[in-house]
């Protein structure tokens, strides 16, 4: 191939590639994201270009490799299940046609299995015994002596912590999800890296071939 034609091929190939990849250099890779809230696990499967993994098979394996949950994603690519015990979970989504993705959910992210508990029963004092009708006074509104006593400080701190934890979790979950998605994307930079590698590898091959032919001729 003459030098000029070779250059034409390279330039046109690169132009086409860069024009088409400048906006979306994304691969058909199935990404899985999961998070836990209490003992409920929320799973989402999506392709790196944003499309959801609809009607795909989901399986969750515990650290022993046993299946602890199984189901199908809805048409937003989501699936929700309850985990029977706190354990490291491997969540696998199979979207068919050779597309499969995994996510490791460590046991530390799973909650203690309880939702924000109801406040412990307040010490409600017994209402004073009903007055005999004859002795009913005008002040019917008998003051309820301390219907709710101040709760022991330990319990209310615990409760507060749990509530805050839940709220913060909910607030950052979209951020974590977005971060995960960004990490999975292949950027234009990755693409150029791959192309560079190809040319470099071929260049080395060319160099050694040329040397071998050079020494053959001698």
């Amino acid at each position, binding site marked *: *191939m003459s030098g000029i*034609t*070779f250059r*034409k*091929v*390279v330039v046109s*190939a690169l132009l*086409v*590639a860069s024009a*088409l*990849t400048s906006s*979306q*250099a*994304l*691969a*058909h*890779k*199935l990404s899985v994201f999961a998070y836990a809230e209490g003992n409920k696990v929320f799973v989402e499967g999506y*392709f790196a*270009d944003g*499309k959801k993994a*609809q009607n795909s098979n989901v399986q969750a394996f515990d650290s022993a490799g046993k299946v602890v949950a199984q189901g199908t994603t809805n048409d937003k690519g989501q699936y929700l299940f309850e985990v029977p015990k706190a354990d490291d979970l491997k969540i*696998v989504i*199979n979207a*068919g*046609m*050779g*597309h*499969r*993705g*995994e996510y490791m959910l460590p046991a530390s992210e799973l909650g203690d299995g309880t939702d924000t508990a109801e406040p412990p029963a307040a010490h409600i004092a017994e209402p004073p015994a009903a007055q005999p009708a004859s002795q009913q006074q005008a002040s019917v509104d008998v003051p309820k002596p301390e219907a709710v006593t101040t709760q022991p400080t330990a319990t209310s701190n615990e409760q507060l912590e749990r509530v805050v934890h839940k709220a913060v979790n909910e607030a950052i979950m979209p951020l974590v999800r977005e971060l995960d998605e960004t990490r*999975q994307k*292949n950027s234009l930079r*990755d*693409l150029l890296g*791959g*192309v560079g*590698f*190809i*040319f470099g*590898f*071929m*260049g080395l*091959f*060319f160099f050694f*071939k*040329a040397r071998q*032919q050079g020494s053959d001729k001698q």
Partner: protein
Amino acid sequence: MHISDGIVSGPVVTAGFVGAAVLAAATMRNIELEEIPKISVMTAVFFVIDFIHVPFVVSSIHLIMNGLVGIILGKRAFMAIMIGVVLQAFFGFGGVSVIGVNSVMLGGGALLAYGIWQCRHLVSFANRDILFGGLAGALGIFFSGCILALALLSTGEAFLVTAKAVLGYHVILMIIEGAVTAACVSFLLKTSPHLLAGQQPSMTTG
């Protein structure tokens, strides 16, 4: 279409590597210096094209163009695609354990496309090159789809169901790829016809 890790069984993975080794050995003998730039450009093109997505109904499809690689590189298409598949595996696009299977699936399709492209010498009518180019592009994908269905067969999924899904999806891809390949062939015929492989009817020279 690239298969990910952990889907197909062990024997299929082994068969993939054996098949890829056989095809590589058969097609990589005595590479000429002059062929190397062309091979590297087509490898890069193949690699990049797989990353381009076209939104389609509920999901999106990506072009594969292994037919065009076969038409331009002839039998060297296999190594170009194999290198592309290896790189793509490191980008998370297709599993590492199934590099052999993916190479056979896509590289085999390229070789088949080259074979079909060479058949154009058997007939002679106007625009036969463009027609055979389109056929080669489409049938390259069809072959790849068949290999995919065969590989998925080993996972235990009901074969007929899988095969129907795979081939149904690929019919559309076949039509699009055939059209794009035909367009590329027609463009190359006008600008640089010597780039197309197999100017002689024999299949052993490239």
